[in-house]
């Protein structure tokens, strides 16, 4: 039997059926990344961990080739807007699709499908009597943790945030998305905080006091997630990981986003994830 996937957030409810055009209200640099905002007139408020499939309405196919398919992007923050919901996304330009999103201008329109996927759950849903949450983010993977931290804060869940970046150009979201809260940083080049991996910080934290009864929430590069998973497994700490895999559709149609399960089969990450418990996957996939 499959371990039951985490449920779609009740708050989010079903996504509007189909794609809809949403206007870009802002796009600014954030470290080496970009943060852009869309005005979603139709959509429900998304839950932390959920994502959208995005494609620009015009010029999606630069150079006659790619991008062709929409791109999966986690929602990093959200809030009420004049006529709907504001959606903030943190993106790193790593290829034709994210490059195109990085260069969005105010007023451009973006095809939006979502919110998609499931969401992180609260510590007490994961483990009765959990002491609180430890958020571990790496690189662009800090995005979904921003909204998660704020929601936990609003619900008085004690939260500690550990974020790691490779170097200054591979960092972002700090002032924009985590500006108001206490964050412990690691960087591989030592430009900020601990010189080394964010998992060093997690290891130290899990070794101390009551951290063993916290729930760990993590998103980041596969190697980092794998380290988080094995650290938590070793200390029997519950963890929820937001994974990535190649996605063509985001709504269960293509079966492209397969992630190996421990029992042999595959889950569709777009509907059974992107958030999984550490014990739900055979290994953290390489996107």
């Amino acid at each position: 039997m499959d371990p039951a996937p985490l449920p779609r957030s009740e708050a989010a409810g079903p996504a509007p059926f189909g794609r809809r055009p949403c206007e870009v209200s802002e796009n600014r640099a954030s470290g080496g990344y970009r943060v852009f905002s869309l005005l979603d007139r139709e959509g429900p408020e998304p839950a932390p961990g959920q994502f959208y499939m995005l494609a620009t309405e015009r010029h999606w196919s630069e150079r006659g080739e790619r991008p062709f398919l929409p791109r999966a992007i986690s929602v990093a923050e959200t809030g009420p807007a004049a006529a709907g919901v504001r959606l903030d996304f943190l993106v790193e330009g790593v290829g034709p699709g994210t490059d195109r999103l990085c260069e969005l201008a105010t007023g451009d329109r973006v095809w939006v499908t979502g919110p998609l996927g499931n969401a992180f759950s609260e510590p007490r849903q994961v483990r009765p009597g959990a002491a609180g949450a430890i958020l571990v983010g790496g690189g662009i993977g800090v995005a979904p943790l921003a909204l998660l931290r704020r929601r936990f804060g609003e619900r008085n869940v004690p939260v500690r945030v550990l974020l790691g970046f490779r170097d200054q150009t591979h960092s972002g979201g700090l002032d924009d998305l985590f500006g108001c809260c206490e964050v412990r940083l690691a960087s591989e080049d030592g430009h900020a905080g601990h010189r080394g991996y964010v998992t060093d910080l997690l290891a130290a934290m899990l070794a101390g006091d009551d951290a063993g009864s916290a729930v760990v929430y993590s998103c980041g590069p596969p190697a980092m997630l794998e380290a988080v998973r094995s650290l938590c497994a070793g200390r029997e700490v519950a963890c929820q990981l937001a994974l990535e895999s190649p996605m063509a559709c985001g709504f269960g149609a293509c079966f492209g986003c397969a992630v190996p399960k421990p029992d042999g089969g595959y889950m569709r990450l777009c509907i059974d994830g992107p958030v999984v418990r550490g014990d739900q996957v055979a290994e953290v996939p390489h996107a």
Partner: protein
Amino acid sequence: MPELCGISLAHRVINASGTYDAIAARQVFGDAVLEEFPFAAFVSKTITPEPRVGNAPRRIWETPAGMLNSIGLPNKGLAGFLEQDLPRLAELPVPLIVSVMATSRPEFAKLVEAVGARDEVAGIELNVSCPNVHSGLIVGEQPAETEALLETLRPLTAKPLIVKLTPNVADPAAVAVGAERGGADAVSLINTLKASAFDPATGTPALAAGHGGLSGPAVRPVAVQQLRAVTAAAGLPAIGMGGIASGVDAAEFLAAGATLVAVGTESFRDPKAGSRVAAELDLARPKEATAHSALDLE
């Protein structure tokens, strides 16, 4: 009102097998999927006699104006499908066509008998053309084998049998003629083109399976040509597909001789592409009429 082999349909646009999971879509988008169902009929993902988990990832890869897939037909198997999926698919507001594939005639017969016995099912599509499964079955490549398969299956059900042709042959029209001779009611085409890509980051094959199938607008001109050839050679109604992304594209397939069209990859980019294409086709109607009469005169 358009119809296919006696199944009457609200419009001419259905889905391509394996590119829409109506059950998952309902989970994601809620009952709006039933209320605004994008297709005039629903074709299931291909089922096989036994369950399959599908191929190892990486399974998809983007290409110029298209994509590769090597999904490998993950499905619950015949028993799992009939038990778990069929009741849910029966709730859809449109006729249901079940796609089946097997690696031998007796196994195909088993699928057709079992599926054909169910009232919820309006028609059966025989997938003899999946490029992602090492079936050992070359039936779809050879007119005589296709004819023989149909002769086996034809007596087993009164339901329409639709043969999904492979595009990876020199002469798809000959296979269509074989299907017709064997007693098929319709053909559908094209399935994906055999294709592969290398990941520039590693210099190794991009798909774990090594190769896969190409779909999307890139293949549209190939699909249109095969459709012309097939409808010129065989008298069967044809369901045309391959890169249809708009009503203009769909009109092209109708002009090339299709009775219905199917939307596959475009649904990934637009979950309601089916309804959009149908609406756009409606607007293109006058031209479609011209096209048809032009064909009639040839």
